[in-house]
């Protein structure tokens, strides 16, 4: 019996050796192809962070098997044979190789065996390993392409150093409602807010603050529930927009656009649980949205567009809704407001500004720009533009833009990486891309967020929404979040007694409706 067992093991080992032997290309006998292999996603000449997960990819060249060799200046190369074009790089070896070679180039060589048994050897794909790491976690919302009804969606956190993706909250745990507008204070995973709308547990903001969870009703006499948000660097105040959003549907071309019937800004004080505002950021003559604090907390940047009455007589009013970039001074100690300043008169250039995001060093402001409205991802022409706040230079961030829509970006905490959404893969789904921003103020070629199974990602219909970097994993348990979401204990919001205005035209409705009543 033992003899037969040994024989079997030997036979299997022999088969294995033989199998492996012909899986490996003969470097000298292979036919060299004078181009890089066709792969998905595009990895040629990208810059990757030293701590990123393996950039698994799909080889689109026909043949079988595939042989991959990955090497850099130091360390042992990674080599392996794959029966299909799904290349899954071993994570431990990848990490070792990257850690050994910060600031160096990384090469991937692809060999494919043809029917005749000859191997094709393609030109190596070159990447650059940046010395600067990226924040280890990314939080985003995953949805399907949405119009009016909301089916399944969820908030997820992704470990960028691996492929681990964990749901923070799924909307089927929260009555099937719409979960959106999440934000963090200073990349801190323990200080998070998000909103939920139009569902069983009601329309509220959920706030996690250093282990404490609260269900907050941000409505006051002057505003309905809040939406776009930015946490002040001092952690005490959050700037919010509150908008009455509408969608319009096109007969030809892109299917829809979003515009506001009314929108204003306000500040929510976490300690006093009060809301305040000032005429500069809630003028009935303008529509203010997308608040963004400067890193020193002394300015509130925001987008400002014309009031609906100014454009309502046009056949397509949204086409005339172009937003400028403005800022207003703010004293975080006294809470007093300064003067209003125009930062970028985009409307004069025939453009509309959205999603202003300031780099952590306060030098650059990255924003989405489209021809009109403030919802760039619905507009194919939208792209990312960079404004140098020191020199005032405003330029197209060409290196990271594509012919498809780009938007919803976020700076990493060290200011060296930007994550943004783009529809470049298929024109409909939004994927996340990471781009390196060097010390000279230039972007490098972006790459798609690495996925464990590139083939699945290639055919997946998904919209990655609102990516936000965080410095660590979110420690709040799903159970605690669900309990808070359904809790009847609601933190009410008061109104600053000095605020007397009541913005006109605001209403409590939402453009998104629940698909299933639960």
């Amino acid at each position: 019996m033992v003899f037969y067992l040994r024989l079997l093991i030997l036979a299997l080992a022999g088969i294995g050796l033989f199998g492996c032997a012909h899986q490996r290309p003969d470097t000298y006998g292979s036919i060299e192809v004078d181009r890089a292999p066709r792969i998905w996603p595009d990895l040629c000449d990208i810059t990757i962070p030293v701590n990123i997960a393996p950039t698994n990819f799909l080889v689109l060249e026909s043949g079988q098997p595939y042989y991959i060799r990955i090497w850099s200046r130091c360390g042992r190369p990674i080599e392996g044979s794959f029966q299909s074009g799904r290349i899954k790089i071993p994570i431990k070896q990848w990490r070792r190789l990257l850690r050994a070679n910060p600031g160096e180039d990384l090469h991937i060589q692809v060999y494919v065996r043809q029917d005749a048994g000859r191997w094709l050897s393609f030109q190596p794909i070159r990447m650059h390993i940046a010395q600067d790491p990226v924040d280890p976690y990314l939080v985003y919302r995953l949805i399907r392409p949405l119009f009016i009804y909301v089916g399944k969606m969820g908030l997820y956190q992704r470990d960028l150093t691996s492929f681990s993706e964990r749901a923070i909250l799924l909307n089927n745990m929260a009555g099937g409602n719409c979960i959106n507008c999440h934000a963090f204070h200073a990349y801190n995973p323990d200080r998070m807010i998000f909103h939920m709308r139009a569902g069983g547990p009601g329309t509220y903001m959920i706030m996690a603050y250093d282990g404490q969870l609260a269900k907050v009703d941000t409505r006051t006499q002057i505003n309905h529930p809040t939406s776009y948000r930015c946490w002040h660097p001092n952690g005490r105040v959050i700037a919010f927009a509150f908008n009455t959003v509408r969608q319009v549907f096109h007969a030809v071309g892109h299917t829809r656009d979003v515009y506001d019937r009314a929108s204003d800004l306000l500040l929510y004080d976490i300690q006093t649980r009060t809301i305040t505002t000032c005429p500069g950021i809630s003028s009935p003559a303008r529509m203010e949205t997308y608040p963004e604090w400067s890193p020193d907390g002394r300015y509130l940047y925001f987008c400002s567009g014309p009031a609906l009455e100014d454009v309502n007589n046009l056949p397509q009013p949204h086409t005339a809704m172009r937003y400028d970039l403005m800022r207003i001074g703010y004293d975080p100690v006294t809470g007093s407001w300064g003067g209003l300043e125009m930062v970028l008169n985009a409307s004069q250039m025939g453009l509309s500004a959205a999603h202003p995001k300031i780099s952590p060093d306060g030098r650059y402001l990255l924003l989405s720009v489209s021809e009109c409205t403030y919802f760039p991802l619905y507009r194919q022409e939208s792209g990312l533009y960079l404004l140098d706040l020191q020199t005032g230079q405003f330029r197209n961030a060409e290196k990271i833009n594509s012919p498809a829509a780009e938007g919803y970006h976020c700076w990493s905490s060290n200011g060296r990486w930007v994550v943004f959404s783009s529809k470049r893969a298929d024109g409909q789904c939004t994927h996340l891309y990471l781009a390196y921003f060097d010390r000279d103020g230039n972007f490098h070629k972006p790459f798609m967020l690495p996925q464990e199974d590139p083939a699945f990602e290639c055919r997946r219909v998904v919209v990655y929404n609102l990516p936000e970097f965080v410095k660590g994993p979110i420690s709040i348990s799903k159970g605690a979040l669900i309990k808070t979401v359904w809790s009847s204990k609601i933190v009410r919001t008061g109104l600053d007694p000095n605020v007397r205005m009541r913005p006109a035209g605001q209403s409590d409705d939402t453009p998104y409706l629940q698909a299933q009543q639960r």
Partner: protein
Amino acid sequence: MTEPISSPPLARYGNIFRLGLTIGLLGFMLIGEFYLAGPGLRCHAQEPVFLFDNHFVMEFLSYPGGPVTLLGRLFSQLMYVPWLGALAMVLLLGLIGGLFGLLVGPSMIHWLPSILLFALYCDYACPSGIALGIALVIAALIIYLRLEGRKWWIRLLGFCVIYTCCYYLTAGLSLVLASLVILHQLLYRRAGPALAYLAMSLAIPYLFASMVFPVHWPDAYIDGLSRFDGYKHGWMTWLVYGSLAAMVGLRPIMLGKTSWRAPLAGPVTAAAVILGGALAVSLCIDRSARRVLLIDYYAARRDWDRVLAIGGRARANDAYVQYQLNRALYHHGQLLDRMFEFVQYPGRSLFLKDPLTRLRPLAHSDLFMDLGLVNEAEHWAYEAVEIKGYTARNLARLGEVHLLKGQTAIASKYLAMLRATPWHRRLADRYGRYLADANLVAEDPYLGQVLKAMPQEDFLVAPEYPEFCLLELVKDPNNTMAFEYYMAQCLLEGDLKGLVRYLPRLEQPKYTRIPRHLEEAIMIWMQLPGAKLPLDARRISDQTIRRFNDFTKVLMDLHGDRHAAARQLARYWDTYWFYWQYVVSGGRS
């Protein structure tokens, strides 16, 4: 497990009798199921989403109740072939009956849950997963009962393991198992174990909900029990649950030596069970729902003859049936000749409105495809996905709209998903060829028509008032459907000025005469001072003029009192004049 009920010869006759009844019952179920499910109605009503894809399967394994939901969806795929689906369903019901046979011994009474389940499945929306879940619950109960006679702690541990597995597989449905086990304990006067099982059955879902698969804790009990895969249970499901409890309640009688056993196992009880089941079935069959479903089924397949045949039997239909009938009339070239043969709902029977748009988003998308308004067809296909998931029809529509818009990258994704469905690979392959060669889209008999009708200039569409799109679409002289729908909309709204504006379109070669309802509307228009007929080559038929004269004479004889004339004018019920008098002018809806 059971003892013989009567003496051997009698028992033999009893067995033959029971076998005959069982075969008869299953045969009846098979015929009934084939009638109910044919021609693929159950599948059409549920459109169970199932993809042969690892990630799709894993999603269902990640929450309690997911496995049986997945299994149910796979099972439902069999219903794309009506006879196969009917056979599978009857076998499943037979299995449930058989399992109860094991539980209560040979009699006809154990068929009661299966008969009630059969009645439950008269509701087309009821997912197959429920019956599968019930089969699992009964199997789990039988396994538990095998532990009877063992030490208390073995039974307790056994229940804990069985219940936990059952909870993962069926979610809240496992509470039925717990109830049956507790009932069993109470029948044998074991209050202590019953209490322990009760505590366990309540604690395990809570622990699952708070630690393993976090959900809102009431959902941990409700999912599977009172709703299943989006289906909300009605009274019939509770009756099924009750019948399961009845089986457990009868078990001591059927297996014991009581005087009740023989009558319960006798032919009278069998007849009562079958008659009761038949009554439940007759109560549950909803013929009007079946008719609506049939129309929806044939409309989805663009079988307009059948839509007209089924829908045309009644003059008054609900708004959805009338919507499909109007589509069928158009595709038969009869919309402007026959639409007033049916009760029309101004603003609701040419286009769907909320809540029908939410209930039948893809049917709404279908009309926009017909009209060439592909963007809006895309919009409602995406709404359909949010509401019903990636059903094969939704995937096919998304593939179509993106092919029509030349967006091949996203189209290929939807077609790849369509390929992963069990029955639509061929369609996916056909459309897949269009990805490589855009000219093939123009040559496709359906997509080619849509492509031709697509508007060139952009305009805004109001989802709340979809009929407004006709004002723009009608400007395209080649969009016949937009023209006829526009005219129909003008007729319904009584907008004769808008109607006359586009009348010259009737001089196109594709029209050889003025459609009847347009003639009738023109006759009314011509009564206005200074009105002229903007047509050169077409004239009103003599018959219409004669009928109009007769109609007006009746009214004039009664001094224009339309209420007094109603009876005499009833013979004109299918004319636009009648609609004009009693809806447009009369202000009735």
